[in-house]
């Protein structure tokens, strides 16, 4: 039994795929032009034909599963449908073939698009200015926290600590550290929300910021958000918004109005751009007006109907990457916003929240629900009762869902919930899909009761069975 194929195994010495003809200009003696000492002697790459390549990657594609294949309720990742028109317009030659250093007068179309997208995102989040430069959510976090660091330093303040809730994404503490801050974790209260009393004790003259997701990673809205903002601001600290969960509140509530000073968004979550098996994303950052001059350069600006790259931000943190951002992703997000408009975006959030609450009610009796009450766009259940009653863990449920043709929910996150399953259906799924998924969980629950070994062996219907992750880490074979 062979397992997953690799292109190297199709290689046959002497076989060729893509070749070029004569250069059409005089031939060159590389030893003379580059120097023999600098030349390589061999290059070991696969030798395959075009048909080999096409069949191999088509075979690999079939071993994958995307939103186009089926329901993908991966909590915190907002796996909504990725509209096809977005792909088509982003690939238009006028965008795809445009070099980043082309003179601005020959790129007014894309600059206008980026300028307008900055403005749309500012409006949606209630912030004053937006940069599109960060390439992903974590990159946006880095950008946002560096802005906070530089702003505080300019005020002559020595604030060294950043507070994160214990329910936070791992990127939050990792980012804080990458910006040179010390991380202070605050525990959530029994309702799964920020414990405002504990927060008051934690915030002092050393506190630079609190990093917060709202709704939080449990899918719960931080109701005391204004009070939280006041706690921070009264003591001279800032409030940072992790935009992973913005899909819950578009047109219903805005981070800027809640009191956040800096936000990052994930265009690949909320704004329907595909995740591409792990990227590219795009992580725009929005700030309140007093932080504008700290944004990375350049930002896209407009004067007298002409769009240009503005490098004149005197307090800028500098660049966080080359060029201007993941523009191809920004185009797709722009198309999505233009397709939906204000009402469409609000409806997207409304239906995302409706779907989550509907599915929650359908399945919650099967699990332990750690936090009661209505959820926003996602919810977290604990499978600890399955573990106790049938010896079956959250991972086993997830693997069995693969056999039923679903991508499983996020497992074991947030860390504060034992045997967590985090379910985010998104607005693009129909009632029929949600009903069928709930039925699948019901069926799997019955299997867990009667044939738990089935779940522990799952998946049984895929090209590979369960994988030995310990072997991968111990043997560490990272190339062929």
């Amino acid at each position: 039994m062979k397992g997953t194929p690799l292109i190297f195994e199709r290689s046959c010495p002497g076989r060729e795929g893509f070749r070029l003809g004569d250069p059409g200009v005089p031939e060159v003696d590389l030893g003379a032009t580059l120097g023999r000492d600098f030349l390589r002697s061999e290059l070991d790459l696969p030798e395959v034909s075009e048909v080999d390549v096409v069949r191999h990657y088509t075979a690999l594609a079939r071993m994958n599963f995307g939103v186009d294949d089926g329901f993908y309720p991966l909590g915190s990742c907002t796996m909504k449908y990725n509209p096809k028109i977005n792909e088509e317009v982003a690939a238009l030659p006028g965008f795809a073939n445009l070099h980043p250093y082309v003179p601005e007068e020959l790129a007014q179309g894309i600059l206008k698009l980026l300028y307008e997208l900055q403005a749309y995102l500012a409006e949606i989040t209630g912030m004053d200015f937006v940069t599109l430069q960060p390439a992903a959510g974590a990159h946006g976090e880095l950008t946002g926290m560096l802005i906070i660091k530089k702003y505080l330093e300019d005020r002559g303040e020595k604030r060294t600590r950043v507070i994160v809730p214990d329910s936070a994404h791992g990127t939050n503490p990792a980012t804080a550290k990458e910006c040179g801050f010390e991380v202070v974790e605050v525990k959530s209260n029994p309702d799964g929300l920020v414990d405002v009393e504990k927060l008051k004790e934690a915030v002092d003259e050393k506190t630079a910021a609190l990093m917060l997701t709202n709704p939080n990673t449990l899918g719960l809205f931080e109701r005391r958000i204004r009070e939280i903002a006041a706690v921070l601001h009264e003591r001279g600290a800032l409030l940072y918004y992790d935009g992973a969960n913005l899909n819950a509140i578009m047109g219903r509530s805005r981070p800027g109005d809640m009191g956040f000073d800096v936000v990052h968004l994930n265009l690949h979550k909320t704004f329907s751009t595909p995740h591409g098996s792990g990227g590219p994303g795009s992580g725009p950052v929005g700030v309140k007006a007093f932080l504008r001059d700290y944004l990375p350069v350049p930002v896209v600006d407009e004067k007298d109907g002409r769009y240009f790259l503005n490098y004149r931000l005197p307090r800028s943190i500098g660049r966080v990457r080359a060029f201007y951002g993941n523009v191809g992703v920004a185009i797709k997000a722009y198309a999505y916003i233009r397709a939906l408009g204000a009402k469409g975006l609000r409806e997207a959030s409304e239906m995302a929240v409706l779907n989550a609450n509907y599915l929650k009610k359908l399945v919650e009796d099967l699990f332990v629900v750690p936090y009661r009450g209505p959820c926003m766009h996602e919810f977290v259940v604990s499978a600890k009762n399955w573990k106790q009653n049938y010896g079956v863990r959250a991972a086993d449920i997830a693997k069995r869902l693969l056999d039923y043709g679903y991508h499983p929910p996020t497992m074991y996150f947030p860390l504060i919930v034992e045997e967590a399953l985090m379910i985010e259906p998104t607005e693009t799924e129909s009632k029929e899909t949600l009903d069928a998924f709930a039925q699948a969980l019901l069926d799997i629950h019955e299997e867990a009761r009667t044939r738990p070994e089935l779940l522990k062996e799952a998946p049984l219907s895929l090209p590979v069975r369960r994988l030995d992750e310990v072997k991968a880490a111990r043997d560490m074979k990272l190339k062929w």
Partner: protein
Amino acid sequence: MSRVLPNLRYTREHEWLLVEGGRGRVGITDYAQESLGDVVYVELPGVGDKVVQGEPFGVVESVKAASDLYAPVSGVVVEVNEALKESPELVNRDPYGEGWMILVEMADEGELEKLLTAEEYEKLLAGEGE
């Protein structure tokens, strides 16, 4: 129920220390290896490096977790368990024996007072839901 050996001293972070004359042998407890799961890698200091009581001296890693190792006592590392490089699973198989990590020439035996006894450590585990 994890094993706790009576002749060892313990830290709150689940390291053990075996006093061998002026030296202390250090490893992680049975409870620690169980909570981590299959250990895939152990990062240890070199011989001659200094360690400080309560400060990290290395990292132990499983597939789903990584945890700092905290020195039970201060001193100089005089021996390192080289076998863990090739066979990190020794930490799971025999945490109090072949899975030991470092041997330290203790700088101040007074520090031993700050460590937990087997009885105290068992109480700590009971508190963690053992």
